[in-house]
């Protein structure tokens, strides 16, 4: 599973992209977040307040209850500020 971080989340995690193999019980975004937070203090800080974080699975916006599976591309980032 590929996990991407953008903007200040990238800075906190310390990388913009990582390949991870979550344990078998991780089946949705919420579960993935809980597990990612155990990887490092940076991960924990970046994902501490999910009100500030948007999630996309395979480049579509999703909620915390969306399923995730091996091979997915999951991205975490702040609300967008383009335009």
């Amino acid at each position: 599973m590929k996990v991407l971080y953008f903007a200040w989340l990238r800075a906190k995690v310390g990388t913009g992209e990582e390949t991870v193999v979550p344990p078998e019980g991780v089946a949705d975004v919420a579960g993935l977040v809980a597990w990612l937070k155990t990887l490092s203090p940076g991960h924990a800080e970046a994902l501490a307040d999910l009100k500030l974080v948007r999630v996309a699975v395979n480049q579509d916006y999703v909620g915390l209850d969306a399923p995730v599976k091996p091979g997915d591309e999951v991205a975490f980032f702040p609300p967008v500020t383009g335009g």
Partner: protein
Amino acid sequence: MIRVQREDFDPAAELARFSGNGAVGGVCMFLGLVRDYVGEATDRRQDVSAMTLEHYPGMTEKQLEAIEAEARRRWPLEDALIVHRYGRLEAGERIVLVATASAHREAAFQSCHFLIDWLKTKAPFWKVEHTAQGDTWVEARDSDDQLAARWGQPAPDRR
């Protein structure tokens, strides 16, 4: 048509494409530029020397294409264009161009307005402003959410 690019674009050349079709009665265009200050009150303004626009390659194109398709569903458009830059941009530089062409001016206006409002809350771009005080990630504004929401469907980015 949508384009995401680092290099500058020429609004005149982009506009030239819109004039060839005899069914077009109105073209509406919006051009977004890097301002040289942030903050509203004059005494709280900070000079901005430049900003950097980060984006999510792949998802950006996918979201912009979806937004364009939605505009074409809602209004009878002869043409639609979104050009958005990324990378470092100095004050005064062009960031984004949105243009629509329709037989009718109201359709051109509304669809162009819709495109930029939705783009602002859906396209995965993030601005970091470079000022004398350092670099700051721009925060999303509630007012942008409200402007996007008036077009009916809440921006999925914020649900």
